[in-house]
């Protein structure tokens, strides 16, 4: 049986600059540049990286909010990238999305009840009364008071609004939810509530998550596997514990080492890898490995291979992949 979601060599390029005489753009921004991963039923995969690495674009392309430039997205073996909107509709039901900003992603003029029943109406599910009962059950499932079904989004706090967004995503009983930074706009004490809720719902409904986040500590709490992206490409994927215990890509190492630790004793003693420079402009990426200008371990690769040759994502032990020219056992273990 195939995996629930298979993404293969996905590309999404955006035109940049003025279109010339024959309608050709000046250049292309390769936001997603050959991304591949799979996701099993009930599994959660964290897609992490910094702004502009293409993680959100990957999610939006997977769910079909924008067309892929090339590559393949298969849900249960069915190819989605060539489907018409009407054909996609049936698959959308099985794949839902939660957004970062609970303020911007809910219609302020709709009651919570109407927000939750709208997907059911669109997909022609149930009769009016059944839909209403379903809305009440959904509110209960996400820890909101069903008696608030007739309230409007502004009457809820940020954390409660994110619960409404989650309830809406659950309405169609999907197999897969794409979560785009679902807790990064929330305060710490509320963030923990939502992380716990997502975990509980996963177990209860057997959901798979594609969890997009920049916060590595949150991802560790929620995901079984992690894929690290840099400038449109996946540079490392590994099961959670392997990645956090022994990161193999120099970028993953730097990323983990940059996370501030809420313990002054640790902060005082630990050695931090501070990367030089900024994330390069994705419309003008460096040659070769796009991380090479900032890479602290570049000196360990002979010659100018890093500046010339794009490293392929290759197998590195059980269920681990890495795109790097370093010898497999080079670099510090932590």
């Amino acid at each position, binding site marked *: 049986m195939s995996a629930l979601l298979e993404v293969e060599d996905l590309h999404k390029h955006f035109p940049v600059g003025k279109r010339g005489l024959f309608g050709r753009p000046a250049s292309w921004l390769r936001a997603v540049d050959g991304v591949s991963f799979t996701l099993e039923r009930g599994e959660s995969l964290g897609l992490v990286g*910094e*702004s502009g690495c293409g993680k959100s674009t990957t999610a939006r392309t997977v769910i079909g909010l924008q067309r892929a430039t090339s590559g393949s997205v298969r849900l249960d073996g069915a190819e989605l990238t060539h489907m018409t909107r009407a054909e996609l509709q049936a698959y959308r039901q099985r794949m839902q999305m939660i957004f970062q900003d609970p303020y911007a992603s809910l219609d302020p003029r709709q009651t919570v009840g109407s927000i939750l029943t709208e997907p059911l109406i669109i997909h022609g599910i149930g009769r009016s009364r059944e839909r209403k009962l379903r809305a009440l059950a959904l509110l209960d499932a996400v820890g909101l008071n069903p008696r608030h079904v007739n309230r409007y989004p502004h009457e809820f*706090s*940020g*954390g*409660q609004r994110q619960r409404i967004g989650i309830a809406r995503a659950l309405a169609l009983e999907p197999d897969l939810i794409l979560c785009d930074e679902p807790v990064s706009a929330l*305060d*710490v*004490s*509320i*963030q*923990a*509530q939502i*992380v*716990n809720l997502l*975990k509980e719902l996963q177990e209860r409904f057997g959901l798979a998550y594609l969890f997009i986040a*920049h*916060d*590595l*500590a*949150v991802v*560790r*709490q929620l995901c079984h596997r992690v894929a690290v992206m840099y400038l449109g490409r996946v540079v490392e994927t590994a099961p*959670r*514990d392997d990645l*956090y215990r022994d990161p193999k890509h120099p970028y993953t190492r*730097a*990323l*983990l*080492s*940059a*996370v*501030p*630790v*809420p*313990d*002054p*004793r*640790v*902060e005082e003693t630990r050695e*931090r890898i*501070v*990367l*030089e420079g*900024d*994330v390069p402009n994705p419309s003008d990426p460096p040659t070769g490995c796009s991380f090479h200008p900032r890479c602290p371990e570049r000196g360990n690769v002979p010659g100018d291979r890093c500046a010339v040759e794009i490293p392929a994502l290759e197998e590195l032990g059980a269920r681990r992949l890495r795109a790097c020219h370093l010898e497999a056992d080079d670099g510090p273990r932590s």
Partner: protein
Amino acid sequence: MALLDVRDLSVRFETHQGTVRAVERVSFRLERGETLGIVGESGSGKSVTCLAILGLIPSPPGVVESGAVDFDGRDLLKLSAAELRHVRGNEISMIFQDPMTSLNPLLTVARQLTEVLEIHEGVSHREARKRAAAALGDVGIPHPEARLDAYPHELSGGMRQRAMIAMALLCEPVVLFADEPTTALDVTIQAQILELMGELQRKRGTAIVLITHDLGVVAGMADRVHVMYAGRLVETGTTHALFAAPQHPYTRGLLESVPTLTGDPDAELHSIDGQPPDLAALPSGCAFAPRCELVVDGCRSAVPPLEPVPGADPAAGDRRAACFEVKP
């Protein structure tokens, strides 16, 4: 004598929803060369406290109800607008979360920097330009001369934040207010900026008030920490003492709800039940009582004062907590 001594500061906002009590009787001191972290979640009053000290509360709707801010023998709250402008930028500087909204998009980086020097120090344009380039170099901007004529939008987020730090430090202030200085930045860039701030502080002895929601950032940067909840200080202490043995149930809950890279990832995260209070309709008594695990009847009727933690190690600094249930 403390460098900055804030006493009994209260700020309210008159809004359509009623009176919002943003800051209630906040007192703290800042010593020379130290970093004081003020932590709290949205609406805790940490930013408003900082704005009030700097005389930047928009009025209306804001009203600084009471308080005094002693700085170098003067009460900042009593200075005229012109006197305050002289203090700000000269002796006290600030950096904010979003450099894009604090830099003027219509002026080149050079102009924003030289303006500060021309206004505050009356140096010539040529001299100001030279010093501006040196300041950009100091904060780690490569090829500073070439960047002088760039506009803010031409710089990356990290570079903009560096430019803003350069601007804030131009007149060598003795106090720097940093309000969520790295919140908008990616973690690898955040690490660069925090390292830069620490280095500049060691070199120049600037005292920093670091306002943030990020307990990790505070743990790495601050000498002392003050925790705010619903407009009040609820706990104070040295960073080490406070993280090692948090006393207030809110501080404890907050520290336990942060996911870390070392905790048990399969255990349920501790979370604080309920929602932060509505500042326009605060409960009588302790504002944390509705969410508190240790709540007793007395908590709902009287506001617990911020008092020394009984039996605290004198090395833990000024160890105080505002909770009736803190016992030796």
